Every structure is written in C-alpha cells, then in structure tokens.
C-alpha cells in the first residue's frame, strides 16, 4: 500500500475486529495475522529475492524463544529484550547467510534445511534454558511502565506488526534495493554487470526477512504464552512455502491471499471431512504447481488482462 491513509484505515478496521471476537475467535484471528506477517516476509525472501530457504520458521522460533528467555530467565525489561532478540536474529541470519549464499539454489535449500533441523535439536536438548521437549510455559508478557498489554489491545499489537511488516517490505520492494533483489533473482550475471553485488544483495535480503520473522516470533511468544519445539519444526516451514506459492510468489497480495486461504482451509474442511483435509491440501498444492505456477494472483492478473483485451476489441 502506498498511502498513509490506507494503512491507517486498515489498522482501524483490523483493530476494530479485535474488540468483537470471542476468545477462540481471537486466537484464530491473531494467528491468521501472524501467518500473513510471516508469509509477507517469506515472500520477500523466496519470491522477490528468489532464495529457496527453509529457515524462515526457525527465525520465528529464535525470536520467540529469545524474548521468553530474556524476559523470564534473565528478567530483562521488555524494550531491551526486544532489541537484544532482534540482534540475536540478525547475527544468526548472518551466520547462516554468509556461507550459505555462496551456494546456489539447491544447496542453499539444503543448508537452511539443516539449520532448521539443528534448531529443533537444540531446543530439545537445551535443558532448563529452552525447557527441552516440553518447551517454556507459565510466563506472561512483562509490564511496560506498569502496563500489561492484553486482550484486544494485544491483538492491535499484532495488527501493527503485520501492517508495519507490509510497509517496510512494500517500500524496500519498490526501491533500488528491491530492483536489485529481483535483478539478482532473474539473472545474477546481468545484475553484476549493472553494478549490483549479487552476494551482498542476497545476504541483506536474507537478514532483513529473517529479522522480520524473528520480530513476528517475539509477538507470537505472548499469544499462546507457551513455546515448544514442535511449533518450529519443518512442517510449518513447508506450509509457509506453500502459502507463498499458492498465493503467487513475488506479490504481497499473493502472500496475503495464500496465508489466509491455507490457514483457514482446515477450519472450513475439518468439520466436513475430518482429517482428510490434509489430502485436499496436498491435491490443491499439486494442481496449483502443475497448472497455475504463478499462483492465484497470477490467475487474477491473466483474467484481468483477458478482460481488458476483449474490452479493447469490442470498442475499437
């Protein structure tokens, strides 16, 4: 979105919804917003920058665990803990990206897959620091200046996070940096000839999107008030990839559509066909990749172009 008014309007509407929902609906709504946030930043990494990385959900986990450990075990004040957790994500992203971006496509996928697995192992073996397989629970969001943000007010925090992520990525995508990312994705050799450093561009895109995932993880930590290794496993990392592909990789709107559709699909299908919804999910995925690799947003664009073309013919 371009205009400030647009963001303000969206913030008001999405925040207003928070006040009319029951507790179960609130939980679904909050997680939907978080999935959209993650899909937006993953779209920048996978769709815009063209990096097939499976570490995005891991950074979500690093953000979540970091904020909990820093505020509960170390008793750091929340603002300081947020800054520190962002730094942890940035450093971790650099540690992964600097060697991994030397590798092309397939190998980056393998390296980030290994990193994602390593993270889950570390969580399971982390003893009292990570709480092992049971994770960490029984904590609450710390107070800031005597105030504890809860209920619909915390949902507003998530709305702001989502819109803030969208604003940052929207601006980056339309800047010289966004063009450099797409240039490197399209043709690294030509990009380098235009003065774009392909490796540096990949690293910066990886760090920015991973840090945004970490930030979303910090917010998530106080949604369920429990974090455990299962949440941050590979299953969700793949779901995120599918969301971006189904929606249409490279497009913000596509990421939002994909996240909404795939997150809500089980809620709609489960009452109808129970656990078979996973089967439908798999089928939809295969069909989408085979017949509509541009995603739903691509379908929308081609329909619009076709309508514009036929309108042009009828009025010569």
């Amino acid at each position, binding site marked *: 979105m371009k205009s400030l008014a647009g963001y303000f309007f969206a913030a008001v509407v999405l925040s207003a919804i928070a006040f009319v929902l029951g507790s179960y609906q609130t939980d679904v709504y909050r997680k939907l917003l978080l999935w959209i946030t993650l899909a937006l930043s993953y779209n920048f990494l996978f769709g815009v920058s063209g990096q097939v990385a499976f570490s995005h959900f891991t950074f979500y986990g690093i953000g979540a665990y970091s904020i909990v450990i820093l505020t509960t075990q170390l008793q750091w004040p929340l603002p300081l803990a947020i800054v520190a957790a962002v730094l942890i994500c940035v450093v971790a992203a650099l540690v992964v990206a600097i060697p991994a971006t030397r590798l092309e496509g397939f190998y980056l996928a393998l390296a980030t897959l290994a990193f994602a697995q390593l993270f889950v192992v570390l969580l399971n073996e982390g003893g009292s620091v990570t709480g092992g397989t049971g994770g960490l629970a029984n904590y609450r969001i710390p107070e800031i200046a005597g105030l504890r943000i809860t209920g619909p007010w915390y949902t507003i925090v998530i709305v702001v996070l989502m819109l803030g992520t969208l604003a940052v990525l929207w601006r*980056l995508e339309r*800047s*010289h940096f966004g063009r450099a990312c797409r240039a490197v994705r399209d043709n690294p*050799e030509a990009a*380098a*000839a*235009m*003065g774009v450093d392909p490796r540096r561009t990949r690293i910066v895109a990886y760090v920015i999107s991973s840090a945004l995932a970490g930030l979303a993880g910090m917010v998530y930590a106080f949604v369920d008030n429990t974090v455990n290794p299962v949440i941050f496993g590979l299953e969700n990392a793949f779901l995120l990839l599918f969301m971006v592909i189904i929606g249409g990789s490279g497009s913000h709107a596509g990421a939002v559509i994909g996240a909404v559709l795939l997150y809500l699909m089980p809620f709609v299908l489960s009452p109808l066909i129970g656990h078979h919804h996973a089967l439908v999910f798999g089928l939809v995925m295969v069909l989408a990749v085979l017949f509509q690799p541009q995603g739903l947003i691509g379908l929308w664009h081609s329909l619009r172009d076709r309508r514009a073309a036929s309108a042009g013919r009828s009025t010569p």
Partner: protein
Amino acid sequence: MSSIALLRVRGLSRRFGGLQAVADLNFDAWSGEVLGVIGPNGAGKSTTFNMIAGALTPSAGSIEFDGQRVDGLPTHAFAARGIMRTFQHNKPFPSMSVLENVMVGMHTRIACSLWQVVAATPAAKHAQAHAAKRAAELIEFVGLKEWIDADVATLSFGQGRLLEIARALAGEPRLMLFDEPAAGLSPSECLRLADVIRAIAARGIAVLLIEHDMRFLMSLAERVIVLNFGRSIAEGTPDQIRVDPAVVEAYLGDLGALSRA
C-alpha cells in the same frame, strides 16, 4: 582528448587450461572515441571483452581505468567505476518493465540507504523519482519511448538490444563496452544502432566495440584492433586495416568480407 588514455591495457593474457586465448595484448582507449576490435572466430575477442568488462579475471597483465588498476576486482565493481556493458545475447530482467530494467542500470548511482528507504524520507523519494525520470530520458534517447511500461518479453530482438544500451547508459559509464551489438539485427536496425553508438561517443564516452560484422564496424570505428589467435596483429584506422597484409592474410578464408567492408 586528454593526454592520458582512459583505458590502458598492458600485457593482457588469458589462458584456459592449455589454450592461450589471449596473449600479451596492449592497447589504449580514449574518451569520446569508438575503438573497434575485430578478428576471425576464436581470435580471443570475447575473452578480451569479458576481461575488460570484469566478467573474467586475466591470467596476466593489467587493466588500468582512469589511472587505477581494475583487473581482479569483482564484476560489480567495474560498473561502480564507470565501465558498463551490453550482452551479445540480450539479458533483460524478464520480471521487470522496460523502465525498471533501465533503473537497475542506475544501481550504483543511487546514493540512498535502506534506512532512508524504509523511513520513506524525502531523500529516498527524490532518489526514486529522479531515477525514474533519468531512465525515461534514456529510453527516449534509444527510441523505446512507446514501450516504456511494456513487458520486456514483448520487445523484438532489436528493441531488446536498444534496451541493453539504455540500461548500460543508466550507469553513467565513461567506458561503454558493446559485445557484437549488430549480431542478429536487420540492416535498418543496424543503421539505427550505429546512430545511437555515434551519439554515445559524442557525449564523450569511450566506446569499445567488439564485432564480427566488419562492414558495421568499419563504418563506425575511428580506430580498429585486429586479433588473431589471441594476439593483436594490426592496429590503425579502418582504411589502414583494409590494406594491412597481416589482416588480409588472417582473413584469407573470407577475403570477400574484407573487400565488401
């Protein structure tokens, strides 16, 4: 013309395993001149081109640009110093419009940090607007004005070549490298291309042209270097080159091409 050449190539050599593709090449290029490099197939033209463009590291020798060594620098550093190139096989960025393609060429000329971009500061907005305006001017200069918002897939091959040129000019080059620009173009497109290249040199940009098409090159270049088996066998004006015995011998299998040129 300044007293020191913009580009100074000394002892440039490149070996691929047992093959000496380029050996001990020496030449200068000056601002505002069109320098042509020709030679039969396998003479080392492309290897020479790629070394000067920064896509290939020389095995020996030096490339000095504006008094500074540039050989061994990464490819993207060449553009930052003012050496821009076109590709023989057009390499547009397919996901972008013509305008955006040209704006990528401006990458090294946009001085605006990512913090400014994220905060959408006036400086960032100005940089973006200025880049779009400059790109539009260059697109008009090469004659693609009507295609400015077009998908690059809809361009013809010749238009794609013009896009390559606009994109390279966007980097504000002081040395422009053309890799067989006439290859695959129709005669009328060649005429248009020659006009564009002359206009670029007239702006004071040094033009280095590697070309297979002798007729095209001879009509355009002020000075020509002839390569054969990786070595320079002649250097001079097109008129001198046409009658040079070494050149005639090198092109013996293609004497017709030489006399027609």
